[in-house]
């Protein structure tokens, strides 16, 4: 059962921000509620006021804005999984969204809500980390741009200020001759290991110019593993596959795995290596 709460339904961002500022810890933003209402039902958290942001217009659009795709924070996973713009420019993102949770959660849950709740066992954050995403956070007085690498502070904690709303996720278009892959493994309701990789060939097309690698679900937050990226960056297409196993081992050790219901530390680290190997094969294939 849900405990009683009052519903606020602001129609603009400044109104929403003002409500958050006024009620502080006693209020929380409510979008799809697929994470929030669960913890409220479990009694782990309670808010006297939920600020329904779904009446604020134009927060769920997906559109191309020059060399960037702009995703409204209130776009649902389902919307993203069928978006023509995303299918054209980020098929790996569409596939990831089509496999989030289950069909009912995808229908109601929003990308913004997923990111802000910062549940470690989630998919979108890990992939956005290798796409160079920038998050737009707004409040009454204006907005700021937050690079995705700075967004996740700890499990269930983002860097948003108490009176800020996440409004937009901006993803730069991929260069030609690049590849993106996201693979996950899980047998419980939430994913246990997630690995994302993006590669881009250099100007001449013979070596890896840009490499980004992120591991999610395993540690308290999804993170890019620069130590593993540098093992692959600059390597030629022929050399790189030989370094993948080492990159996998480095990424696994850096992922802060601990033994728990999702698997032993050893097992999770092993799976990180396996998923990276497969992600590399997929991403390199796309570069050709």
């Amino acid at each position, binding site marked *: *059962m*849900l*405990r*009683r*709460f*009052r*519903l606020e339904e602001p129609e603009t961002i400044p109104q929403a921000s003002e409500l958050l500022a006024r009620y502080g810890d006693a209020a929380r933003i409510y979008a799809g*509620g*697929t994470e929030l*209402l*669960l913890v409220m*039902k479990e009694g782990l958290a309670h808010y006297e006021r*939920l600020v329904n942001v779904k009446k604020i217009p134009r927060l769920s659009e997906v559109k191309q804005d020059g060399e960037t795709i702009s995703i409204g924070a209130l776009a649902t996973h*389902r919307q993203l999984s069928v978006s023509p713009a995303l299918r054209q420019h980020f098929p790996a993102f569409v596939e990831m969204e089509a*496999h989030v*949770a*289950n*069909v*009912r*959660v995808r*229908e*109601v849950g929003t990308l913004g809500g997923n990111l802000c709740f910062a549940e470690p066992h989630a998919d979108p954050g890990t992939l956005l980390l290798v796409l160079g995403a920038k998050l737009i956070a707004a409040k009454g007085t204006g907005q700021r741009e937050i690079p995705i690498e700075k967004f996740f502070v700890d499990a269930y904690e983002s860097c948003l200020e108490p009176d800020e709303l996440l409004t937009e996720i901006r993803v730069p278009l991929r260069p030609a001759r690049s590849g993106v892959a996201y693979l996950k493994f899980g047998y419980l*309701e939430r994913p246990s290991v997630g690995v994302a990789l993006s590669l881009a060939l250099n100007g001449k097309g013979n070596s890896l110019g840009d490499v980004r690698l992120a591991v999610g679900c395993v540690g308290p937050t999804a993170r890019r593993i620069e130590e593993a990226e540098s093992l692959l960056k600059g390597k030629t297409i022929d050399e790189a596959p030989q370094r993948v196993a080492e990159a996998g081992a480095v990424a696994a050790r850096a992922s802060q795995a601990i033994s728990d219901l999702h698997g032993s530390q050893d097992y999770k680290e092993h799976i990180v290596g396996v998923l990276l190997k497969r992600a590399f094969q997929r991403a390199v294939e796309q570069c050709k």
Partner: protein
Amino acid sequence: MASLMSKPRDAHTIPVSFTVNGKLYELEVEPHELLLDVIRDRLGLTGAKRSCDVQVCGACTLLLDGRPVSSCTLPAFEARGKEVQTIEGLAHNGKLHPLQDAFIEHGGFQCGFCTPGMILTAKVMLEENPEPSEEQIKHFMHGNICRCTGYKKIIASILAASKKMRPPAPAKRKS
């Protein structure tokens, strides 16, 4: 049950109007009342079940504007201005929906607890994809859990229904 708990005098209610299986309802709901409880306890439609209560099993599935939602985790006010469909609304003038027929004919249920959710979800899938492969069925239905059947007969029922529901192939022209 939310509706039976005594309301404080300053209880904040929201007037909502929505249709359920085509019939219009106008109610006052408190923000924390869940759609599942309103449908079951206030409207008496008990096809949807509370099972896991954490939106992973699908027994509480309802269609909201034709899309599947976990009514155990959806506040009732989210249905305002929308069309709700429950399993009770699937049959038409006493005639069962092809999915219901198929589940009966192919043994797609045993205890029946997951069945309303299974059928409503399969209905949406077949609308999106009238000729699904077994893999596609498994992916779409991934969030509907059954403890009895082992799923084989559920998939068989859905495949059978999809064949029945497809528009017939155009008759071949004689040359």
